[in-house]
């Protein structure tokens, strides 16, 4: 059963639509759980308040990590995979019943793991490094969730096969679906690693296996833990391309190069899991250097390609619409009132300048040592997963509400502000955490004053300022996430029904017209912006090596 979307013209499989909706709803529930825990954690780490006791602090660190990094992200990605493999391809869902089974397994896993954590039987944090042992149902919950997610990924490939057989698309997949295919392949790698490590750990928690080697656990676990964040990167970049098309009618100025960049992700990005073992003595420097370089920076090259290709797709389209004056008229005349557009541009800026630069610098064996196991590391991934992926997912939701839920956005004015508030909040939070880490503040520590410890350590007095800044950023990010959740909940429940294109609050742009005459660079403004980014990156790179030299004075 299909309906034809009167706004986009897509044929929408109604079974697929239901599955997209339930997975998206559970993603939002997971995000709500994650941010409630997050604000309590912020006020615990902010020493003047120091809200929670040690037990509840570590309990909620576990709870927050699992809901934010696994449940929120993967539920949303499953919704995206179904959308990209059916709606975008005008195709049908291959096995809706299996889709519901996958959803049931994932939902059961979410409930089981969360209940066990809140009962205080799994204070092991997201990494659950052995020999820390949680209740067997905690591991079982994660296994159920992972099996459900794996079934969803298999269904995605099934959908692609059906679409190919029934010739519902041209010779190659659209770029958006191609990026999602990349995310799905990375998901297979991730979930396979999860199965390899969580099944024996589950058996160990039951007493069937005597011992899990901690070094081996850490190696394989990070194949899940880090690679799962690479699923996000691929999904996020795909959405960037999609929003370029939806908002201004943009397409990649060289689609083949963009596809090649996705292939580089498939081949090399998962090797980066090795970042987490940089100070482990068990693996050699050769293993560390090869893997943390993403195979000689080929996957970093892919990110650089996307960093140019996505903004240039916006610029090229805007110029073809006639916004051609100077270097940046395309940007000043961009649809800033469209919250999906502003969310995506802010996500690109935040992901590049905060998450991307620190990712490469902290991922190198030498400069990593300055910040290893400090609060700078979660600061870095707030700059990737939160300001990048979460803001992107928030942005595309502003299109999903009218196109999939067929409702108008409630509180549209507020929705136009929300991405900016979230961006400012997370940027403050993330940058403060990175600076605190550079000043030596440890991560995951309940009491960073070390009160009652046999030794006394005084941090640089500047840390007090950055703790306050982190708290302010956390509050702003929490409030803007609540605003987003309320907008989504009210829109899909009491929002006015969409009756046709006239009800759309966000523009769905036709493809930009072809260029009349082409002279010089296709996207000179983007080129300048990219060069500014490279200069900032070089300055930070130099600074970190300088700090390293100051830490260890080698003569």
């Amino acid at each position, binding site marked *: 059963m299909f309906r034809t979307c009167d706004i986009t013209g897509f044929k929408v499989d109604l079974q697929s639509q239901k599955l997209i909706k339930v997975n998206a709803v559970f993603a939002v529930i997971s995000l709500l759980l994650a941010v409630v825990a997050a604000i309590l954690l912020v006020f615990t780490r902010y020493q003047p308040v120091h809200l929670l006791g040690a037990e509840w602090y570590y309990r909620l660190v576990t709870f927050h990590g699992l809901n934010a990094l696994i449940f929120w992200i993967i539920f949303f990605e499953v919704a995206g995979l179904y959308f990209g493999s059916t709606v975008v391809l005008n195709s049908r869902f291959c096995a809706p019943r299996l889709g519901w089974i996958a959803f049931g397994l994932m939902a059961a896993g979410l409930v089981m793991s969360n209940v066990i954590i809140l009962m205080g039987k799994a204070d092991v944090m997201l990494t659950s490094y052995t020999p820390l042992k949680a209740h067997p149902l905690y591991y079982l919950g994660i296994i159920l969730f992972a099996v459900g997610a794996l079934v969803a990924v298999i269904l995605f*490939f099934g959908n*692609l096969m059906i679409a190919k057989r029934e010739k519902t698309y041209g*010779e*190659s*997949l659209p770029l958006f679906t191609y990026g999602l*295919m990349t995310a799905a*392949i*990375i998901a*297979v*790698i991730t979930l*396979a*690693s999860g199965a390899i490590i969580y099944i024996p750990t589950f058996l160990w928690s039951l007493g069937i296996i005597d011992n899990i*080697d901690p*070094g*081996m656990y850490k*190696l*394989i676990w990070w*194949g899940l833990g880090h*690679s799962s964040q690479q699923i996000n990167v691929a999904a996020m970049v795909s959405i960037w391309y999609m929003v370029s098309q939806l908002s201004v009618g943009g397409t990649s100025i060289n689609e083949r190069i963009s*596809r*090649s960049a996705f*292939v580089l992700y*498939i*081949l*090399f990005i*998962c*090797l980066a*899991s*090795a970042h987490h*073992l940089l100070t482990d003595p*068990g*693996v*050699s420097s050769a*293993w560390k250097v*090869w*893997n943390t370089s993403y*195979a000689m920076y080929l996957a970093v090259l892919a990110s650089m390609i996307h960093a140019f290709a996505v903004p240039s797709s916006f610029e090229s389209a805007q110029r073809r619409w006639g916004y051609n004056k100077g270097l940046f008229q395309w940007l000043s005349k961009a649809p800033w009132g469209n919250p999906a557009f502003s969310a995506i541009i802010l996500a690109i800026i935040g992901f590049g300048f905060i998450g991307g630069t620190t990712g490469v610098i902290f991922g190198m064996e030498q400069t990593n040592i300055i910040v290893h196991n400090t609060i700078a590391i979660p600061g870095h991934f707030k700059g990737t997963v939160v300001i990048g992926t979460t803001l992107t997912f928030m942005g595309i939701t502003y299109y999903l509400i009218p196109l999939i839920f067929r409702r108008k956005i409630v509180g549209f004015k507020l929705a136009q502000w929300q991405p900016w508030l979230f961006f400012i909040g997370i940027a403050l939070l993330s940058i403060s955490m990175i600076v605190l880490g550079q000043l030596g503040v440890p991560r995951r520590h309940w009491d960073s004053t070390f009160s009652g410890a046999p030794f006394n350590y005084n941090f640089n007095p500047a840390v007090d300022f950055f703790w306050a800044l982190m708290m302010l950023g956390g509050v702003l990010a929490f409030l803007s996430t609540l605003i987003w959740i309320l907008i989504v909940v009210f829109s899909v429940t009491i929002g006015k029904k969409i009756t046709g294109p006239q009800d759309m609050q966000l523009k769905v742009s036709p493809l930009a017209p072809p260029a009349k005459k082409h002279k010089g660079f296709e996207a000179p403004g983007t080129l300048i912006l990219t060069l500014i980014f490279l200069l900032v990156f070089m300055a930070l790179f130099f600074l970190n090596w300088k700090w390293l030299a100051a830490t260890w004075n080698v003569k």
Partner: protein
Amino acid sequence: MENEQQPNKEKASFGRMIMDDYMLLLFLGVTIYAIFYLIWGVMELSNLPAIPEEIKKTLIK
């Protein structure tokens, strides 16, 4: 001229064929990760010498 262009055409279609074959890409992605990260790492950890019993006992105390 036609003869010169022919190989380019074939090359392009071959590259596209590879890029569009998601099962091949899945195989390559899993294999590269398995060889360089997983198997190499597991081999290095497996070849570590065991802690001498005396030291182990001291540590466990």
